[in-house]
């Protein structure tokens, strides 16, 4: 469960204060599929960084699984990211010269999980992300964009996080592969009850979620149920 209470974030350039987030409050329950939507410059990336424990708010509280993570040190934030958050990036960010298995295993390496347990978790995550088994031993730079993003999703899943944060996951993909990736998220949400937060500037992408939080100029413009959810039918 996620709770944001009056979160603000300002950047300082010398004495000049630039407010980016101006008091954001919302709550996301376990198992929800939420899209955070807004144009560039709306502060959605900054919000994502705070939700992903990459950054801390200037004021307000961010409560993740009943723990206030708004005032933690760098290493404590790293702990939160390792145990509770799975990232999926627009630019994938895989280790290009490493195999698929090694890429997915990486979060477990930092979590000090024993070797034999790692392999089980990695296989499980790759299956859940829907990457066919004959690709598992490929190097990640031998895969197509859609396959790469599935590897990235598997990597986000592998440490069984509380939330999966997807930052423009379809931004570097063509429409069709983008659809497949979004379908994968829907499946993970429906079948395995993963909490998914999708950050995007495209209304079309946001419409794949159950709930859309619309952000503009650092404030919530609209927070509504999505009644016209676009459902992708994956035929595997």
């Amino acid at each position, binding site marked *: 469960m996620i709770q944001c209470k009056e979160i603000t974030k300002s950047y300082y350039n010398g004495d000049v204060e630039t407010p980016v987030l101006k008091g954001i409050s919302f709550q996301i329950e376990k198992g929800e599929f939420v899209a955070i939507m807004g144009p560039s410059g709306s502060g959605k990336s900054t919000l994502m*960084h705070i939700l*992903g424990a*990459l*950054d801390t708010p200037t004021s307000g509280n961010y409560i993740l699984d009943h723990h206030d993570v708004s005032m933690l040190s*760098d*290493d404590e934030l*790293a*702990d939160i*990211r*390792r*145990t509770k958050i799975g*990232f999926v*990036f627009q630019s994938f*960010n895989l*280790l290009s*010269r*490493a195999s698929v298995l*090694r890429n997915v295993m*990486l*979060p477990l*390496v*930092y*979590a*000090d999980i024993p*070797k034999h347990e790692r392999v089980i978790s990695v296989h499980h995550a790759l299956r859940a992300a829907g990457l066919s088994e004959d690709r598992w031993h490929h190097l990640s730079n031998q895969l197509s964009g859609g396959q790469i993003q599935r590897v990235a999703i598997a*990597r986000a899943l592998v*440490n069984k996080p509380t939330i999966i944060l997807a930052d423009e996951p379809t931004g570097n993909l063509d429409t069709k592969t983008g659809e497949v990736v979004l379908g994968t998220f829907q499946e993970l949400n429906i079948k395995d009850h993963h909490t998914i937060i999708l950050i995007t500037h495209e209304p079309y992408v946001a419409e794949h979620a159950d709930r859309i939080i619309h952000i503009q100029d650092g404030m919530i413009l609209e927070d509504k149920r999505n009644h016209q959810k676009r459902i992708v039918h994956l035929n595997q």
Partner: protein
Amino acid sequence: MTTTDFFEETYASLTVNKVRTGLTMLGIVIGIGSVIAMVSVGQGAQQSIESSIQSIGSNLIVITPGVQRGQGFQISSGRGSAQTLKQEDADAIVKEVSLARAVAPEISRRYQVTARGTNTNTQVVGTVEVYPLVRNLEVAEGSFLTDNHIRTLARVAVLGPTTRDDLFGVNADVIGQSIRINKVDFKIIGVTKAKGGSGFGNQDDMIFVPLSTAQRFLAGNTYVTTISIQAQDQQSMSSIQQQVTDLLLGRHRIQDPQLADFSVLNQTDIVATASSITNTFTMLLGAIAGISLIVGGIGIMNMMLTTVTERTREIGLRKAIGAKKRDISLQFLAESVALTFLGGVLGVFLGWCIAFLISQLAGIITQISSGSVMLAFGVSAAIGILFGYYPARRAAGLNPIEALRYE
């Protein structure tokens, strides 16, 4: 992260750009290699000097006459010129210094020696039966002087191999032949084994005759020029030195040790002096070679800094998925240490090859001690840490958000 994880990560990132890794490592290889080779030359020199000092005798204390200063005399006749050591001094040392294993007084001077028409000028040493024991001398043919020869003032001589070669021809059979020293005939009873030049006088070019005979027929007095003492062991050397000094001061009625008319030289001191010279020499060579090691280390740092910049996004990702500062900095440190350590291993091998070539081609004795190998490993690992620390700190300190955005 477990140790195997570190190894895997390190291996993976070092093999990404093999040429760069190899070239960077080459700096350390050459650095360590030259340190090993140079130190081996230094230690080889030290070893050969020490062994030639040891060849004079082991646990040796040598007493030589000092400066003679009679009362009222203002003219010093120079060190070693005093005729102050006597046969009785040697006898007193035998009697009173119990830690001495053997005492060999000698009188030596150069004489013209003739034999069957050839002649040479060489050192004639009048000495006693225990001399070979004290001075590590061995007899090759015949026998050495005995107490009986000394008691009976026998006119017998033992030749050094070089003297034998000079007078009679190389490896001639000389036992029973006679030579003439200072118009006195001596019968040859033995030849000593060759010891080689020691740098402290050629011990092969000598003639040994009984001490009493030398005093009576050659020198015409009862002085001795040197008393050599062999101590029982190395520990007793300094106490023997003290006892001998006290004894001789008493016998010569000298109150002030500063005015002693003899000097007592301890072989350990000579070895220590020689060692300190060669140590300095070794350190100098090592330091010169060490400069290339530092240059190699800077090469490592340069590469690591480049790597950190190149892998900024990767570092950002690692941080995003939960790597702590420590994990990142350890990973980069592990890479630089792996580079230097591997370079160290290859460098030791290279150094060994160079040392081998030097001893083969230039004929200089080289010696690679386990100490210098350990030191090389230690230094190369330390260089890895030293020059890897700053890049690793930089990597660990990156802000994950900015690192992820880095293009």
